């Protein structure tokens, strides 16, 4: 498969993630869309790693997965704490930093 196909596929996945982040109001769905964007970047890194026959890119993908796992643990803990306080995951309610 030519590299462009992987380029366009991961671009499309990344843009789907951006659309979801802008469209939805549920904080958990927005978080999931961020995961989708991270995975699109991972896919492109693996494709480039195969193109240049360089294992460093796959190590980077491994570290991205590690950081994503840590980020999800902390982020979900924050969302659970906010839900306990305001009984909602609507981001229009979670805007106290704005005022």
């Amino acid at each position: 498969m030519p590299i462009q196909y992987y380029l366009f596929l991961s671009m499309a996945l990344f843009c789907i993630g951006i659309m979801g982040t802008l469209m939805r109001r549920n904080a958990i769905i927005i978080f999931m869309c961020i995961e989708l964007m991270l995975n699109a970047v991972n896919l492109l890194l693996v494709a480039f790693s195969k193109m240049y026959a360089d294992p460093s890119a796959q190590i980077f993908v491994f570290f991205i997965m590690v950081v994503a796992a840590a980020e999800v643990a902390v982020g979900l803990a924050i969302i659970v704490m906010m839900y306990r306080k305001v009984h909602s995951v609507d981001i229009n309610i979670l805007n106290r930093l704005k005022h």
Partner: protein
Amino acid sequence: MEIHEILFWFLTVMALGCGLGVILSRNPISSVLFLIATFFAISGHYILMNAQFLAIVNIIVYAGAIMVLFLFVIMLMNLNADTEPQKNRLIQFAGVLSGGILFLVILAALRTTTSNAADFTSTDIGLMKNLGKVLFTQYVLPFEISSVLFLSAMIGAIVIGKKE
């Protein structure tokens, strides 16, 4: 078409369709299930590119650990389609429009990239033996630092999540 191309197109359609399902479905539970299907499609792409270690890690870490965490939190909060807040039509349309415009801009910028498909041959760098050799020689310090990151994330999640 040979089997490789058929699998590529099948996995591409599956990834994009399930990705759209994530952002379009009303129910958060079905969003999570669509996202798991997307991760399986991406793992299939990794296997097609002979990156078997990352395919397995993707399934174990993402589909196995992270998405189960999401499912737990959603079920804990008892969210469903009725309580799901919706943005108004105008903001949804603006979100889709800006995402689509970004897609068009990157598409226009990368449309003329030349393919060196000759370089895109079968390699065995994605196998566990080669990756392990690189990870534990060249990248051993980031690997150890990431374990400290995990520990701090674990403690941070417990401290944030516990009732005061």
